[in-house]
């Protein structure tokens, strides 16, 4: 079921889980900003979890379906409508040829995902359909094609298989704004004075409007290093808190560079990254320090159903 972008959105793209295995050549992993929502959308349609999805920001692309099919929308609630009739999130929705999907208003969260019960019919580059800076364009047609496993499902059978408790658990994980964002201390932790560490944990931060898929700059207290900022570049990961010479923090996201030479204060734990990615600009949040055992246990629990 191919789709057509009638009007392009702010920064929409096709994404899957991204590519690993090439960072030693400087090739970024890319992939969905909120892997939890994307995985959930594919899970609800009983797709392979690595099936590419459409990542939407607000204002979002207007999408026309060129054939009949089934879709699922997860992540941010942008009030989706098909031909002006509102549709539900977190469930399989039947669409018909020439139907148009629009997003009306950014009610909750920052990034929505649309999964389609069909295979994305373009070649991968290095095991992934995710690319740097490959924004969807007006009039672009994305070729999705049905294969046998997709045709096995109907909206009814997919509804019967919905795990409502799990969907609610995912939703709570993504949009609970009272829980701090948990981090593990990084190599430059000891190079920041205690006062700055106190501020990092006790002062609220907000995400700046300069955010993009490479990184989310934060607004908050300025933190200073005890030593000159003269680190040799080394590998960074998504969720890395880089302390810039200005005293500001930028959190690296899906399109991050593979190495970085700024002070590495710490990393947001994997299970909290989707929630962080979904936070709206200007909303206050706090950081909290956790430990490796907890971080990994939470991750295993959350992703076990996929």
């Amino acid at each position, binding site marked *: 079921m191919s789709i057509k972008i009638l009007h392009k959105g702010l920064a929409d793209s096709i994404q899957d889980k991204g590519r*690993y*295995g*090439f*960072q*030693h*050549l*400087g*090739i*970024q*992993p890319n992939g969905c900003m909120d892997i939890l929502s994307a995985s959930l959308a594919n899970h609800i349609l009983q797709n392979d979890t690595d099936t590419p999805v459409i990542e939407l920001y607000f204002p979002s692309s207007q999408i026309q379906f060129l054939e009949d099919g089934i879709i699922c929308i997860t992540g941010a609630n942008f009030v989706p409508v098909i031909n002006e009739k509102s549709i539900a999130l977190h469930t399989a929705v039947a669409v018909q040829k020439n139907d148009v999907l629009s997003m009306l208003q950014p009610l909750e969260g920052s990034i929505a995902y649309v999964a389609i019960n069909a295979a994305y019919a373009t070649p991968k*580059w*290095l095991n992934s359909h995710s690319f740097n800076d490959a924004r969807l364009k007006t009039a672009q047609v994305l070729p999705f094609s049905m294969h046998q496993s997709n045709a096995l499902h109907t909206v009814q059978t997919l509804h019967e298989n919905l795990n409502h408790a799990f969907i609610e658990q995912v939703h709570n994980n993504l949009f609970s704004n009272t829980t701090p964002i948990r981090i*593990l201390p*990084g*190599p430059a932790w000891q190079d920041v004075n205690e006062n700055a560490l106190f501020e990092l944990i006790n002062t609220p931060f907000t995400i700046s409007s300069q955010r993009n898929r490479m990184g989310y700059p934060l607004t908050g207290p300025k933190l200073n290093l005890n030593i000159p900022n003269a*680190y*040799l*570049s*080394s*590998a*960074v*990961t998504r*969720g*890395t808190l880089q302390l810039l010479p200005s005293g500001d923090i930028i959190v690296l996201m899906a399109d991050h*560079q*593979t*190495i970085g030479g700024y002070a*590495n204060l*710490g*990393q*947001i*734990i*994997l299970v909290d990254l989707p929630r962080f990615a979904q936070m709206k600009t200007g909303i206050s949040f706090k950081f909290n320090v956790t430990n*490796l*055992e907890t*971080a*990994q*246990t939470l*991750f*295993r629990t959350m*992703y076990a159903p996929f």
Partner: protein
Amino acid sequence: MQHKFQNWSIYNLGDHALVFALAPIIDVSILQKLKHLHALIESKKINGILDIIPSYHTLTIVYDIPIFLSPTQNVNDQLQLFSTQLLSEFENKILTQNKNEATIHQVPVCYENIFALDIENISKTKQISCQSIIQIHTSKQYDVYSIGFLPGFTYMGLVDEQLKIARHNKPRNEVAAGSVGIAGLQTGIYPTNCPGGWQIIGKTPLKIFDPHPDKLAKFKVGDRVQFYSISKSVFDSLNEYL
């Protein structure tokens, strides 16, 4: 978890990466050690390792938590056991390895003003003739210490102290692919047209990054690069960017 093994520091980078670090200096013997450790890890084909990323004094392993680690044993114990066993084997092996083998790349560079946007300025600032700058820049082999910033962007060192120069305060909006630059004691090559702040002293006609899956980055960390000077007409005949 953070522990030591001989000269190594081993620490976690977040909840899904592990770093093997040596002394934080730019040193070719450290580079060679990391290269051999990288090769050893690769040869083991360990399940759950997603990426192995060398850079200057560190080698970072990014892993897939549920595949790389068991849920029934203590995480820190598992990582400590893994790194200790790996480094013991490595330190025993390294004694028998030839430490100086490296792939050497001969890289042509046209240092003429049409490409060498900053060479005149460096010449004036440093009171060195353009000819001497070229002679100094081509007089030694450089080690590739890191690849990043962009796919294939190559960080090499060390440049002779006479050419040491800071980056531009304000980066150029676009530096041409193939441009050869200097920043501090490092020299580098831009793989694609992109914004950049390095002082540009020439351009290579060779593609150092090709998205074709069989090609990708021309250099790897631990390789050596020897630049040699070519004229504009030779550049034109070798130009891979057409």
